[in-house]
């Protein structure tokens, strides 16, 4: 029996992408721009030097709603290892939804709104590819009195790069002084929006949530600025790879733990000792004893990129790991990769080999990120 072709969704910016000459590809159930006519390299370099505009409306935006912050935070803290209770109003936390085996169901951002009237609410942004899994898991595991409310009528765009702050400040007051990983309600040319100083490129920048029917005008305004160009998923991937950031389904999944993924920094200190979250048994044990394998940066010595699923071998030829993301880093101007290796090989400087087209290719384990983060301090 033939399966029905999947019906792809479109974001509110689809027509604009087409008008801008984007190459459209299916991604996580959406028709998304992978690149615009200038190409991935140009878009990547533009974002590192000026300001790039990304449509990330395919991602899942939702609210967790409870009676007060303590109650809502306690509810979500049973499902994530991050410190949410200690989140100050207007601050954002990166964490993971974990399964009982300590694997990662998804990684996400949790925002505690700044407005006192929003006490008890937490905003979340999850991966497009995991939205349905996440929502089902959260709905099934939140206690009575705390509910998940998916937001379907808002778009999300990211403005990223060293000039993002000066550009956005032309239309939104207050945003220039926002701290990294903070959020605020703002108005963009009089239109209400929620602004977060965060992103997925390693650069300073913002993610802006706005009503779906207002986003096109906002994006057209931003693109009219000479500092801003539209950026597709291709450059989004090379930017985040150079920044050492995980892509769900590649660098992290239901098997990998946050400890193996080298995300222990995102687990609250108190939470490490107290546990009390799904999968805590494995995660706290791995923190104490060290994981069997670890996510590392990998720098091939030659010019040939090593792609996802490339086998990593040691100098004796034994398989010791796997590349989970790999390609060409335009800012590094060479191939870059990340992947998992046995912990004994995880120290920066360790010589390894990558099996590319049946031939061993020399490479080295390196510290992440490949390009220094340029976040607002």
């Amino acid at each position: 029996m033939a399966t029905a072709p999947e019906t792809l969704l479109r974001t509110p910016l689809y027509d604009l992408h087409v008008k801008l000459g984007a190459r459209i590809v299916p991604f996580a159930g959406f028709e998304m721009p992978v690149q615009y006519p200038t190409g991935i390299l140009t878009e990547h370099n533009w974002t590192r030097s000026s300001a790039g505009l990304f449509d990330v409306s395919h991602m899942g935006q939702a609210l967790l709603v409870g009676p007060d912050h303590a109650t809502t935070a306690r509810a979500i803290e049973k499902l994530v290892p991050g410190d949410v209770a200690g989140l100050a109003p207007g601050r954002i936390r990166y964490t993971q939804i974990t399964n009982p085996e300590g694997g990662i169901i998804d990684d996400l951002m949790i925002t505690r709104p700044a407005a006192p009237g929003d006490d008890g609410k937490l905003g979340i942004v999850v991966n497009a590819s995991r939205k349905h899994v996440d929502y089902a898991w959260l709905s099934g595991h939140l206690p009575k009195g705390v509910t998940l409310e998916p937001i379907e009528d808002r778009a999300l765009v990211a403005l990223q790069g060293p000039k993002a702050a000066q550009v956005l400040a032309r239309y939104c007051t207050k945003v220039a002084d926002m701290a990294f990983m903070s959020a605020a309600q703002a108005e963009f040319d009089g239109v209400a929006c929620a602004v977060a100083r965060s992103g997925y490129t390693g650069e300073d920048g913002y993610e802006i949530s706005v009503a779906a029917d207002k986003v096109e005008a906002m994006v057209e305004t931003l693109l009219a600025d000479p500092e801003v160009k539209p950026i597709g998923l291709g450059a989004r991937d090379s930017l985040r790879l150079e920044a050492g950031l995980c892509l769900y389904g590649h660098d992290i999944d239901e098997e990998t733990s946050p400890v193996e993924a080298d995300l222990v920094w995102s687990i609250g200190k108190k939470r490490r000792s107290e546990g009390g979250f799904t999968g805590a048994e494995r995660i706290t044990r791995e923190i104490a004893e060290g994981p069997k394998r670890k996510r590392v940066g990998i720098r091939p010595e030659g010019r040939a990129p090593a792609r996802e699923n490339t086998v990593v071998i040691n100098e004796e030829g034994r398989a010791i790991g796997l590349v989970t993301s790999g390609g060409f880093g335009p800012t590094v101007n060479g191939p870059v990769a990340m992947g998992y290796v046995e912990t004994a090989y995880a120290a920066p400087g360790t010589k390894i080999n990558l099996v590319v087209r049946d031939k061993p290719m020399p490479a080295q384990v390196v510290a992440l990120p490949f390009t220094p983060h340029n976040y607002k301090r």
Partner: protein
Amino acid sequence: MSKHYTKEHEWISIAGDIATIGITNHAQEQLGDVVFVELPAIGKAVTKGGDAAVVESVKAASEVYAPVSGEVVEVNKDLEGDPALVNREAEGAAWFMKVKLKDKAELADLMDKAAYDKFVAAQ
């Protein structure tokens, strides 16, 4: 000198018994920014339809299959230092390799420019 094309988006230019092989302009447009080209060793015997080279864009690696059988007699060293030449001059300066033809009859299976353009337009 005659020029031929394959459904795998390669061009083959014939001078005597030497075939100069590259990828078409359409192929480079589809690939996007080329960041690495792996060329065969000189002297390597390639077989029609077998692996001959690899071209990598930012996004992905693509195999280049030999459109004809023969022996590799020259490769384009310029592509090692400047892979983006493939984007700029796919059907000229960015040729990949020269192959000494083993069997000229294999050329009969290839398309001419008009047939290739029609093939691309139909895709």
